[in-house]
Protein backbone atom coordinates (compact mmCIF):
# COMPACT_ATOMS: atom_id res chain seq x y z
CA UNK A 1 0.00 0.00 0.00
CA UNK A 2 2.69 2.47 0.88
CA UNK A 3 4.66 1.68 -2.30
CA UNK A 4 1.58 2.43 -4.44
CA UNK A 5 0.98 5.58 -2.38
CA UNK A 6 4.52 6.73 -2.91
CA UNK A 7 4.29 5.98 -6.64
CA UNK A 8 1.03 7.86 -6.98
CA UNK A 9 2.14 10.92 -5.05
CA UNK A 10 5.39 10.91 -6.96
CA UNK A 11 3.46 10.96 -10.25
CA UNK A 12 1.25 13.77 -8.99
CA UNK A 13 4.31 15.80 -7.98
CA UNK A 14 5.76 15.38 -11.41
CA UNK A 15 2.64 16.64 -13.09
CA UNK A 16 3.47 20.15 -12.02
CA UNK A 17 7.22 20.15 -12.41
CA UNK A 18 9.16 20.33 -15.63
CA UNK A 19 9.99 16.68 -16.37
CA UNK A 20 13.48 15.67 -17.37
CA UNK A 21 14.08 14.78 -21.00
CA UNK A 22 13.83 11.20 -22.10
CA UNK A 23 15.09 8.96 -20.40
CA UNK A 24 13.74 10.27 -17.12
CA UNK A 25 15.21 9.96 -13.65
CA UNK A 26 12.27 8.36 -11.90
CA UNK A 27 11.30 5.16 -13.62
CA UNK A 28 7.59 5.51 -13.09
CA UNK A 29 7.32 8.82 -14.93
CA UNK A 30 7.40 7.30 -18.37
CA UNK A 31 5.21 4.39 -17.22
CA UNK A 32 2.48 6.72 -15.98
CA UNK A 33 2.59 8.73 -19.13
CA UNK A 34 2.56 5.70 -21.38
CA UNK A 35 -0.62 4.57 -19.71
CA UNK A 36 -2.04 8.06 -19.97
CA UNK A 37 -1.19 8.33 -23.65
CA UNK A 38 -2.68 4.97 -24.63
CA UNK A 39 -5.78 5.47 -22.51
CA UNK A 40 -6.27 8.99 -23.80
CA UNK A 41 -6.01 7.95 -27.42
CA UNK A 42 -8.33 4.98 -27.11
CA UNK A 43 -10.95 6.87 -25.11
CA UNK A 44 -10.77 9.84 -27.47
CA UNK A 45 -11.23 7.52 -30.43
CA UNK A 46 -14.43 6.16 -28.95
CA UNK A 47 -15.68 9.65 -28.12
CA UNK A 48 -14.78 10.84 -31.60
CA UNK A 49 -16.55 7.95 -33.30
CA UNK A 50 -19.64 8.80 -31.28
CA UNK A 51 -19.43 12.49 -32.17
CA UNK A 52 -18.99 11.67 -35.83
CA UNK A 53 -21.88 9.24 -36.14
CA UNK A 54 -24.30 11.36 -34.20
CA UNK A 55 -23.05 14.57 -35.83
CA UNK A 56 -23.46 13.32 -39.38
CA UNK A 57 -26.87 11.96 -38.50
CA UNK A 58 -28.04 15.24 -37.00
CA UNK A 59 -26.82 17.18 -40.02
CA UNK A 60 -28.88 14.89 -42.23
CA UNK A 61 -32.07 15.13 -40.16
CA UNK A 62 -31.68 11.62 -38.75
CA UNK A 63 -31.02 10.36 -35.27
CA UNK A 64 -27.97 8.12 -35.46
CA UNK A 65 -27.27 5.19 -33.16
CA UNK A 66 -29.11 5.59 -29.88
CA UNK A 67 -29.99 2.07 -28.81
CA UNK A 68 -26.77 0.55 -27.46
CA UNK A 69 -26.26 2.03 -24.04
CA UNK A 70 -27.75 5.34 -22.93
CA UNK A 71 -27.89 7.63 -25.97
CA UNK A 72 -25.86 5.13 -27.97
CA UNK A 73 -22.48 5.72 -26.33
CA UNK A 74 -21.56 2.04 -26.42
CA UNK A 75 -21.99 1.69 -30.18
CA UNK A 76 -18.27 1.76 -30.88
CA UNK A 77 -17.69 -0.96 -28.32
CA UNK A 78 -20.43 -3.06 -29.89
CA UNK A 79 -18.75 -2.61 -33.27
CA UNK A 80 -15.42 -3.60 -31.82
CA UNK A 81 -16.83 -6.78 -30.32
CA UNK A 82 -18.51 -7.64 -33.64
CA UNK A 83 -15.27 -7.15 -35.50
CA UNK A 84 -13.33 -9.27 -33.04
CA UNK A 85 -15.62 -12.18 -33.69
CA UNK A 86 -15.11 -12.12 -37.45
CA UNK A 87 -12.77 -14.36 -39.34
CA UNK A 88 -9.33 -13.07 -40.27
CA UNK A 89 -8.93 -14.00 -43.92
CA UNK A 90 -5.47 -13.88 -45.47
CA UNK A 91 -5.20 -14.05 -49.24
CA UNK A 92 -3.16 -16.98 -50.45
CA UNK A 93 -0.81 -14.90 -52.58
CA UNK A 94 -0.20 -12.31 -49.92
CA UNK A 95 3.19 -11.53 -48.49
CA UNK A 96 2.46 -12.82 -45.00
CA UNK A 97 4.88 -10.84 -42.83
CA UNK A 98 4.17 -7.50 -44.50
CA UNK A 99 0.45 -8.25 -44.52
CA UNK A 100 0.42 -8.85 -40.76
CA UNK A 101 2.60 -5.88 -39.90
CA UNK A 102 0.80 -3.24 -41.96
CA UNK A 103 -2.08 -2.48 -39.53
CA UNK A 104 0.31 -2.07 -36.65
CA UNK A 105 2.50 0.30 -38.64
CA UNK A 106 -0.57 2.37 -39.45
CA UNK A 107 -1.92 2.54 -35.92
CA UNK A 108 1.17 2.83 -33.74
CA UNK A 109 2.31 6.35 -34.74
CA UNK A 110 -0.98 7.86 -33.61
CA UNK A 111 -0.18 6.92 -30.04
CA UNK A 112 3.48 7.85 -30.29
CA UNK A 113 2.73 11.43 -31.20
CA UNK A 114 1.05 12.01 -27.87
CA UNK A 115 4.41 11.68 -26.18
CA UNK A 116 5.14 15.33 -26.92
CA UNK A 117 1.66 16.86 -26.54
CA UNK A 118 1.31 18.91 -23.36
CA UNK A 119 -1.69 18.12 -21.17
CA UNK A 120 -0.83 20.81 -18.67
CA UNK A 121 2.01 23.24 -18.23
CA UNK A 122 4.95 20.91 -18.65
CA UNK A 123 2.97 17.72 -18.21
CA UNK A 124 4.06 15.55 -21.10
CA UNK A 125 6.09 12.42 -21.48
CA UNK A 126 9.12 14.16 -22.92
CA UNK A 127 9.54 17.88 -23.38
CA UNK A 128 11.64 17.53 -26.51
CA UNK A 129 13.07 20.75 -27.80
CA UNK A 130 12.38 19.47 -31.33
CA UNK A 131 8.76 18.52 -30.60
CA UNK A 132 7.25 19.77 -33.84
CA UNK A 133 9.84 17.94 -35.93
CA UNK A 134 9.09 14.76 -34.01
CA UNK A 135 5.38 15.15 -34.71
CA UNK A 136 5.82 15.66 -38.44
CA UNK A 137 8.28 12.81 -38.76
CA UNK A 138 6.22 10.26 -36.85
CA UNK A 139 2.97 11.12 -38.58
CA UNK A 140 4.56 10.23 -41.91
CA UNK A 141 5.21 6.65 -40.81
CA UNK A 142 1.55 5.72 -41.26
CA UNK A 143 1.94 6.23 -44.98
CA UNK A 144 4.47 3.44 -45.12
CA UNK A 145 1.93 1.21 -43.39
CA UNK A 146 -0.68 2.09 -45.99
CA UNK A 147 1.66 1.22 -48.80
CA UNK A 148 2.63 -2.03 -47.11
CA UNK A 149 -1.04 -2.94 -46.91
CA UNK A 150 -1.67 -2.16 -50.57
CA UNK A 151 1.41 -3.98 -51.81
CA UNK A 152 1.06 -7.14 -49.79
CA UNK A 153 -2.57 -7.72 -50.69
CA UNK A 154 -1.60 -8.95 -54.17
CA UNK A 155 -4.68 -7.23 -55.58
CA UNK A 156 -4.21 -4.69 -58.32
CA UNK A 157 -7.03 -2.48 -57.06
CA UNK A 158 -5.56 -2.32 -53.57
CA UNK A 159 -2.22 -1.36 -55.03
CA UNK A 160 -3.84 1.39 -57.09
CA UNK A 161 -5.64 2.69 -54.05
CA UNK A 162 -2.50 2.62 -51.94
CA UNK A 163 -0.47 4.44 -54.60
CA UNK A 164 -3.11 7.13 -54.87
CA UNK A 165 -3.13 7.47 -51.11
CA UNK A 166 0.65 7.82 -50.90
CA UNK A 167 0.68 10.39 -53.70
CA UNK A 168 -1.97 12.46 -51.96
CA UNK A 169 -0.28 12.34 -48.56
CA UNK A 170 3.10 13.29 -49.95
CA UNK A 171 1.58 16.19 -51.89
CA UNK A 172 -0.20 17.59 -48.86
CA UNK A 173 2.85 17.34 -46.60
CA UNK A 174 4.23 20.52 -48.15
CA UNK A 175 1.47 22.97 -47.20
CA UNK A 176 1.13 21.33 -43.79
CA UNK A 177 4.80 21.61 -42.95
CA UNK A 178 5.06 25.15 -44.25
CA UNK A 179 2.08 26.32 -42.23
CA UNK A 180 3.55 24.71 -39.10
CA UNK A 181 6.81 26.49 -39.92
CA UNK A 182 4.96 29.78 -39.79
CA UNK A 183 3.77 29.03 -36.27
CA UNK A 184 7.26 27.99 -35.25
CA UNK A 185 8.62 31.30 -36.47
CA UNK A 186 6.08 33.20 -34.39
CA UNK A 187 6.71 31.19 -31.24
CA UNK A 188 10.44 31.03 -31.64
CA UNK A 189 10.81 27.41 -30.59
CA UNK A 190 10.10 23.92 -31.84
CA UNK A 191 8.96 22.61 -28.47
CA UNK A 192 5.20 22.20 -28.25
CA UNK A 193 5.07 23.41 -24.66
CA UNK A 194 6.80 26.66 -25.59
CA UNK A 195 4.43 27.17 -28.51
CA UNK A 196 1.44 26.87 -26.19
CA UNK A 197 3.02 29.26 -23.70
CA UNK A 198 3.67 31.78 -26.50
CA UNK A 199 -0.09 31.97 -27.12
CA UNK A 200 -0.85 33.60 -23.81
CA UNK A 201 -1.88 36.88 -25.36
CA UNK A 202 -3.84 35.71 -28.37
CA UNK A 203 -4.10 32.25 -29.89
CA UNK A 204 -2.26 31.91 -33.16
CA UNK A 205 -5.45 31.40 -35.13
CA UNK A 206 -5.94 35.16 -35.26
CA UNK A 207 -2.31 35.91 -35.92
CA UNK A 208 -2.06 33.40 -38.76
CA UNK A 209 -5.51 32.77 -40.29
CA UNK A 210 -4.04 31.55 -43.55
CA UNK A 211 -1.86 29.10 -41.72
CA UNK A 212 -4.85 27.72 -39.87
CA UNK A 213 -6.82 27.24 -43.09
CA UNK A 214 -3.88 25.55 -44.76
CA UNK A 215 -3.29 23.22 -41.84
CA UNK A 216 -6.96 22.35 -41.60
CA UNK A 217 -7.39 21.60 -45.29
CA UNK A 218 -4.06 19.85 -45.59
CA UNK A 219 -4.77 17.88 -42.44
CA UNK A 220 -8.13 16.72 -43.76
CA UNK A 221 -6.44 15.57 -46.93
CA UNK A 222 -3.66 13.74 -45.10
CA UNK A 223 -6.05 11.69 -43.01
CA UNK A 224 -8.35 10.88 -45.96
CA UNK A 225 -11.38 12.66 -44.69
CA UNK A 226 -14.07 14.09 -46.86
CA UNK A 227 -13.94 16.01 -49.15
CA UNK A 228 -10.72 14.19 -49.97
CA UNK A 229 -11.76 10.67 -49.08
CA UNK A 230 -11.76 9.17 -52.51
CA UNK A 231 -9.32 6.53 -51.38
CA UNK A 232 -11.87 4.63 -49.42
CA UNK A 233 -15.20 5.99 -50.47
CA UNK A 234 -18.27 3.89 -50.92
CA UNK A 235 -19.43 5.11 -54.26
CA UNK A 236 -16.06 4.89 -55.87
CA UNK A 237 -15.16 1.52 -57.14
CA UNK A 238 -11.57 0.65 -56.48
CA UNK A 239 -12.17 -0.14 -52.89
CA UNK A 240 -8.92 1.09 -51.47
CA UNK A 241 -5.93 -0.37 -49.77
CA UNK A 242 -7.82 -2.19 -47.05
CA UNK A 243 -9.97 -4.35 -49.34
CA UNK A 244 -8.38 -7.62 -48.40
CA UNK A 245 -8.46 -7.03 -44.68
CA UNK A 246 -11.14 -8.41 -42.39
CA UNK A 247 -11.60 -8.94 -38.72
CA UNK A 248 -9.37 -7.26 -36.20
CA UNK A 249 -6.84 -6.11 -38.80
CA UNK A 250 -9.56 -4.11 -40.49
CA UNK A 251 -10.54 -2.72 -37.14
CA UNK A 252 -6.98 -1.47 -36.71
CA UNK A 253 -7.28 0.46 -39.96
CA UNK A 254 -10.62 1.85 -38.88
CA UNK A 255 -9.24 2.86 -35.49
CA UNK A 256 -6.16 4.21 -37.18
CA UNK A 257 -8.26 6.48 -39.35
CA UNK A 258 -10.03 7.99 -36.35
CA UNK A 259 -6.78 8.01 -34.39
CA UNK A 260 -5.20 10.14 -37.06
CA UNK A 261 -8.22 12.42 -36.92
CA UNK A 262 -7.66 12.81 -33.18
CA UNK A 263 -3.97 13.48 -33.76
CA UNK A 264 -4.60 16.11 -36.40
CA UNK A 265 -7.21 17.80 -34.21
CA UNK A 266 -4.76 17.79 -31.33
CA UNK A 267 -2.04 19.34 -33.43
CA UNK A 268 -4.37 22.05 -34.66
CA UNK A 269 -5.67 22.68 -31.15
CA UNK A 270 -2.19 22.88 -29.71
CA UNK A 271 -0.60 24.97 -32.41
CA UNK A 272 -3.40 27.35 -33.25
CA UNK A 273 -6.01 27.36 -30.53
CA UNK A 274 -3.87 27.58 -27.44
CA UNK A 275 -3.58 24.01 -26.17
CA UNK A 276 -4.45 23.71 -22.52
CA UNK A 277 -4.98 27.43 -21.79
CA UNK A 278 -8.34 28.60 -20.57
CA UNK A 279 -10.03 30.32 -17.65
CA UNK A 280 -12.15 28.10 -15.46
CA UNK A 281 -11.89 24.42 -16.26
CA UNK A 282 -8.83 22.24 -15.57
CA UNK A 283 -6.29 22.42 -18.41
CA UNK A 284 -6.63 18.84 -19.66
CA UNK A 285 -10.36 19.41 -20.00
CA UNK A 286 -9.70 22.49 -22.10
CA UNK A 287 -7.52 20.42 -24.37
CA UNK A 288 -10.29 17.87 -24.83
CA UNK A 289 -12.83 20.62 -25.51
CA UNK A 290 -10.61 22.17 -28.17
CA UNK A 291 -9.94 18.80 -29.79
CA UNK A 292 -13.69 18.20 -29.99
CA UNK A 293 -14.32 21.65 -31.46
CA UNK A 294 -11.82 21.06 -34.24
CA UNK A 295 -13.16 17.57 -34.85
CA UNK A 296 -16.71 18.87 -35.01
CA UNK A 297 -15.61 21.22 -37.78
CA UNK A 298 -14.17 18.23 -39.63
CA UNK A 299 -17.49 16.38 -39.25
CA UNK A 300 -19.29 19.45 -40.52
CA UNK A 301 -17.22 19.58 -43.69
CA UNK A 302 -17.65 15.86 -44.19
CA UNK A 303 -21.42 16.15 -43.99
CA UNK A 304 -21.60 19.05 -46.38
CA UNK A 305 -19.16 18.77 -49.22
CA UNK A 306 -18.98 16.45 -52.22
CA UNK A 307 -15.82 14.63 -53.10
CA UNK A 308 -13.03 15.90 -55.34
CA UNK A 309 -11.49 13.91 -58.16
CA UNK A 310 -7.95 12.59 -57.91
CA UNK A 311 -6.38 14.97 -60.39
CA UNK A 312 -8.25 17.88 -58.83
CA UNK A 313 -6.88 16.81 -55.45
CA UNK A 314 -3.28 16.87 -56.65
CA UNK A 315 -3.77 20.11 -58.54
CA UNK A 316 -5.29 21.72 -55.48
CA UNK A 317 -2.27 20.81 -53.36
CA UNK A 318 0.44 21.83 -55.76
CA UNK A 319 -1.05 24.80 -57.56
CA UNK A 320 -3.13 26.44 -54.89
CA UNK A 321 -2.09 25.47 -51.37
CA UNK A 322 1.66 25.24 -51.90
CA UNK A 323 2.21 28.76 -53.29
CA UNK A 324 -0.06 30.15 -50.60
CA UNK A 325 1.94 28.34 -47.94
CA UNK A 326 5.20 29.76 -49.28
CA UNK A 327 3.83 33.27 -49.36
CA UNK A 328 2.45 32.81 -45.86
CA UNK A 329 5.89 31.84 -44.59
CA UNK A 330 7.49 34.78 -46.37
CA UNK A 331 5.01 37.27 -44.93
CA UNK A 332 5.44 35.89 -41.41
CA UNK A 333 9.20 36.10 -41.67
CA UNK A 334 8.99 39.70 -42.92
CA UNK A 335 6.70 40.65 -40.04
CA UNK A 336 9.05 39.17 -37.48
CA UNK A 337 11.96 41.04 -39.01
CA UNK A 338 10.05 44.32 -39.04
CA UNK A 339 8.88 44.09 -35.41
CA UNK A 340 11.49 42.31 -33.32
CA UNK A 341 10.18 41.11 -29.98
CA UNK A 342 6.45 40.55 -29.51
CA UNK A 343 4.33 41.35 -32.52
CA UNK A 344 1.84 44.18 -31.92
CA UNK A 345 -1.85 43.37 -31.97
CA UNK A 346 -2.74 45.76 -34.78
CA UNK A 347 -1.11 43.31 -37.15
CA UNK A 348 -4.14 41.03 -36.88
CA UNK A 349 -6.39 42.92 -39.32
CA UNK A 350 -3.41 43.20 -41.66
CA UNK A 351 -3.03 39.42 -41.61
CA UNK A 352 -6.70 38.85 -42.33
CA UNK A 353 -6.55 41.28 -45.23
CA UNK A 354 -3.50 39.52 -46.66
CA UNK A 355 -5.30 36.18 -46.32
CA UNK A 356 -8.38 37.40 -48.17
CA UNK A 357 -6.26 38.97 -50.92
CA UNK A 358 -4.23 35.82 -51.40
CA UNK A 359 -7.30 33.60 -51.60
CA UNK A 360 -8.88 35.88 -54.19
CA UNK A 361 -5.69 36.06 -56.21
CA UNK A 362 -5.14 32.33 -56.04
CA UNK A 363 -8.70 31.58 -57.12
CA UNK A 364 -8.31 33.77 -60.15
CA UNK A 365 -5.18 32.01 -61.33
CA UNK A 366 -5.91 28.47 -60.27
CA UNK A 367 -7.11 25.92 -62.81
CA UNK A 368 -8.82 22.85 -61.43
CA UNK A 369 -7.74 19.57 -62.95
CA UNK A 370 -7.87 18.34 -66.51
CA UNK A 371 -10.73 17.95 -68.89
CA UNK A 372 -11.43 15.25 -71.39
CA UNK A 373 -8.50 13.28 -72.71
CA UNK A 374 -8.32 12.51 -76.42
CA UNK A 375 -8.45 8.77 -76.84
Amino acid sequence: MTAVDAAFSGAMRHLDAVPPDWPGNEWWHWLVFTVICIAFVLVMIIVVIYVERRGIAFFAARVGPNRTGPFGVLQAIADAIKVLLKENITPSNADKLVYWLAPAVVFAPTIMIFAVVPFQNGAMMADLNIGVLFVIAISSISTIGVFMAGWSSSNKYSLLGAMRNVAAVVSYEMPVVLSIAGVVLLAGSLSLNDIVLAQERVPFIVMQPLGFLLLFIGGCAEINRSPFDLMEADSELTAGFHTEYSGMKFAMFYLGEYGEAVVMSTIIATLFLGGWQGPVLPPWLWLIVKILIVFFTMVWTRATLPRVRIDQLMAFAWKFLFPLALINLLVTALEILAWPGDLPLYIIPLNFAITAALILLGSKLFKVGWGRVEV
Partner: protein
Amino acid sequence: MKFERYGIGIAKGMRVTLRNLVRRRVTTQYPEQRLVVARRTRGNELVWDKEKCTGCATCAKTCPQGVIHIETSPGEENNYTVEKFEVDTGYCISCGLCVEACPYNALFMGYAFELAKYQRGALVLTRDQLEADGRIPSSYFRPELDETLPEQTLLIDRKE
Protein backbone atom coordinates in the same frame (compact mmCIF):
# COMPACT_ATOMS: atom_id res chain seq x y z
CA MET B 1 -12.22 25.48 -65.11
CA LYS B 2 -11.47 28.13 -62.54
CA PHE B 3 -12.07 28.11 -58.81
CA GLU B 4 -15.11 30.33 -59.13
CA ARG B 5 -16.77 32.06 -56.23
CA TYR B 6 -13.59 32.06 -54.09
CA GLY B 7 -14.84 29.61 -51.53
CA ILE B 8 -18.06 31.49 -50.78
CA GLY B 9 -20.19 28.70 -52.23
CA ILE B 10 -18.71 26.26 -49.75
CA ALA B 11 -19.31 28.70 -46.89
CA LYS B 12 -22.97 29.16 -47.85
CA GLY B 13 -23.41 25.42 -48.02
CA MET B 14 -21.99 24.98 -44.57
CA ARG B 15 -24.37 27.58 -43.21
CA VAL B 16 -27.35 25.70 -44.64
CA THR B 17 -26.14 22.46 -43.12
CA LEU B 18 -25.70 24.14 -39.77
CA ARG B 19 -29.26 25.41 -39.92
CA ASN B 20 -30.48 21.91 -40.60
CA LEU B 21 -28.51 20.66 -37.63
CA VAL B 22 -30.90 22.34 -35.23
CA ARG B 23 -34.08 21.36 -37.04
CA ARG B 24 -36.27 18.58 -35.82
CA ARG B 25 -35.27 15.08 -36.83
CA VAL B 26 -37.70 13.29 -39.06
CA THR B 27 -36.96 9.82 -37.77
CA THR B 28 -39.74 8.01 -35.99
CA GLN B 29 -38.41 5.48 -33.53
CA TYR B 30 -40.42 2.44 -34.46
CA PRO B 31 -41.80 0.43 -32.58
CA GLU B 32 -42.01 2.81 -29.66
CA GLN B 33 -43.50 5.62 -31.75
CA ARG B 34 -45.80 4.84 -34.62
CA LEU B 35 -47.33 6.99 -37.29
CA VAL B 36 -50.99 6.64 -38.18
CA VAL B 37 -51.36 5.34 -41.72
CA ALA B 38 -53.75 6.84 -44.23
CA ARG B 39 -57.41 6.01 -44.07
CA ARG B 40 -57.39 4.60 -47.56
CA THR B 41 -54.34 2.45 -47.10
CA ARG B 42 -54.20 -0.67 -49.22
CA GLY B 43 -52.66 -2.90 -46.61
CA ASN B 44 -51.49 -6.45 -46.95
CA GLU B 45 -54.76 -8.21 -46.33
CA LEU B 46 -58.41 -8.27 -47.27
CA VAL B 47 -61.48 -8.01 -45.09
CA TRP B 48 -64.45 -10.05 -46.22
CA ASP B 49 -68.06 -9.53 -45.25
CA LYS B 50 -69.63 -12.95 -45.30
CA GLU B 51 -73.21 -11.74 -45.12
CA LYS B 52 -73.10 -9.57 -48.22
CA CYS B 53 -71.04 -11.91 -50.38
CA THR B 54 -73.08 -13.84 -52.93
CA GLY B 55 -70.29 -15.90 -54.47
CA CYS B 56 -70.41 -14.16 -57.87
CA ALA B 57 -66.58 -14.30 -58.07
CA THR B 58 -66.26 -10.95 -59.88
CA CYS B 59 -63.35 -10.18 -57.59
CA ALA B 60 -61.57 -13.39 -58.55
CA LYS B 61 -62.06 -12.68 -62.24
CA THR B 62 -60.80 -9.09 -61.92
CA CYS B 63 -57.68 -9.90 -59.97
CA PRO B 64 -54.67 -9.54 -62.29
CA GLN B 65 -52.66 -12.08 -60.35
CA GLY B 66 -55.42 -14.58 -59.63
CA VAL B 67 -54.94 -14.77 -55.86
CA ILE B 68 -58.60 -15.17 -54.85
CA HIS B 69 -59.90 -18.73 -54.90
CA ILE B 70 -63.65 -19.27 -54.57
CA GLU B 71 -65.64 -22.47 -54.60
CA THR B 72 -69.39 -22.43 -54.43
CA SER B 73 -72.24 -24.88 -54.55
CA PRO B 74 -75.91 -24.29 -55.25
CA GLY B 75 -77.84 -23.34 -52.13
CA GLU B 76 -81.53 -22.99 -51.36
CA GLU B 77 -83.51 -19.99 -52.59
CA ASN B 78 -81.78 -19.82 -55.98
CA ASN B 79 -78.38 -18.55 -54.75
CA TYR B 80 -74.85 -19.75 -54.15
CA THR B 81 -73.37 -21.04 -50.91
CA VAL B 82 -69.78 -20.07 -50.64
CA GLU B 83 -67.75 -23.12 -49.65
CA LYS B 84 -64.21 -21.88 -50.01
CA PHE B 85 -62.91 -18.31 -50.07
CA GLU B 86 -59.16 -18.02 -49.86
CA VAL B 87 -56.83 -15.15 -50.52
CA ASP B 88 -53.12 -15.75 -51.10
CA THR B 89 -51.65 -12.54 -49.68
CA GLY B 90 -48.15 -13.71 -50.51
CA TYR B 91 -48.86 -13.27 -54.19
CA CYS B 92 -51.21 -10.30 -53.93
CA ILE B 93 -49.87 -6.95 -55.19
CA SER B 94 -52.35 -4.82 -53.19
CA CYS B 95 -53.70 -3.12 -56.29
CA GLY B 96 -57.29 -2.91 -54.98
CA LEU B 97 -59.00 -3.86 -58.24
CA CYS B 98 -60.99 -6.59 -56.48
CA VAL B 99 -62.41 -4.09 -54.00
CA GLU B 100 -63.49 -1.82 -56.84
CA ALA B 101 -65.04 -4.67 -58.74
CA CYS B 102 -67.27 -6.14 -56.04
CA PRO B 103 -70.88 -5.20 -56.86
CA TYR B 104 -72.21 -5.86 -53.35
CA ASN B 105 -69.55 -3.98 -51.31
CA ALA B 106 -68.59 -7.19 -49.57
CA LEU B 107 -64.81 -6.87 -49.86
CA PHE B 108 -62.55 -4.27 -48.22
CA MET B 109 -58.82 -3.66 -48.09
CA GLY B 110 -57.34 -4.25 -44.67
CA TYR B 111 -56.01 -1.52 -42.40
CA ALA B 112 -53.39 -3.56 -40.57
CA PHE B 113 -49.91 -3.92 -42.01
CA GLU B 114 -47.81 -5.64 -39.37
CA LEU B 115 -48.61 -9.08 -40.66
CA ALA B 116 -45.32 -10.82 -41.23
CA LYS B 117 -45.27 -14.58 -40.88
CA TYR B 118 -42.48 -17.09 -40.64
CA GLN B 119 -43.65 -19.42 -43.39
CA ARG B 120 -44.92 -18.63 -46.83
CA GLY B 121 -47.84 -21.02 -46.46
CA ALA B 122 -49.11 -19.05 -43.50
CA LEU B 123 -49.70 -16.05 -45.75
CA VAL B 124 -52.72 -17.67 -47.32
CA LEU B 125 -55.80 -16.25 -45.60
CA THR B 126 -58.26 -19.10 -45.17
CA ARG B 127 -61.91 -18.71 -44.50
CA ASP B 128 -61.59 -19.02 -40.72
CA GLN B 129 -59.04 -16.24 -40.59
CA LEU B 130 -61.15 -14.06 -42.85
CA GLU B 131 -64.19 -14.54 -40.64
CA ALA B 132 -62.36 -13.76 -37.41
CA ASP B 133 -63.26 -10.72 -35.38
CA GLY B 134 -61.21 -7.62 -34.92
CA ARG B 135 -60.22 -7.03 -38.54
CA ILE B 136 -60.35 -3.39 -39.42
CA PRO B 137 -61.24 -2.45 -42.99
CA SER B 138 -59.68 0.60 -44.59
CA SER B 139 -61.77 3.08 -46.52
CA TYR B 140 -60.21 2.45 -49.95
CA PHE B 141 -63.08 2.85 -52.42
CA ARG B 142 -65.51 2.74 -49.48
CA PRO B 143 -65.86 6.38 -48.44
CA GLU B 144 -68.53 5.56 -45.81
CA LEU B 145 -65.81 4.11 -43.61
CA ASP B 146 -63.89 7.39 -43.40
CA GLU B 147 -65.35 8.36 -40.02
CA THR B 148 -64.42 5.12 -38.32
CA LEU B 149 -60.70 5.52 -38.89
CA PRO B 150 -58.25 7.92 -37.22
CA GLU B 151 -56.60 10.83 -38.98
CA GLN B 152 -53.35 10.34 -40.86
CA THR B 153 -50.13 11.89 -39.51
CA LEU B 154 -48.67 14.21 -42.11
CA LEU B 155 -45.04 15.26 -42.10
CA ILE B 156 -46.02 18.87 -42.74
CA ASP B 157 -48.03 18.86 -39.52
CA ARG B 158 -45.08 17.99 -37.34
CA LYS B 159 -43.69 21.30 -36.31
CA GLU B 160 -40.04 22.19 -36.92
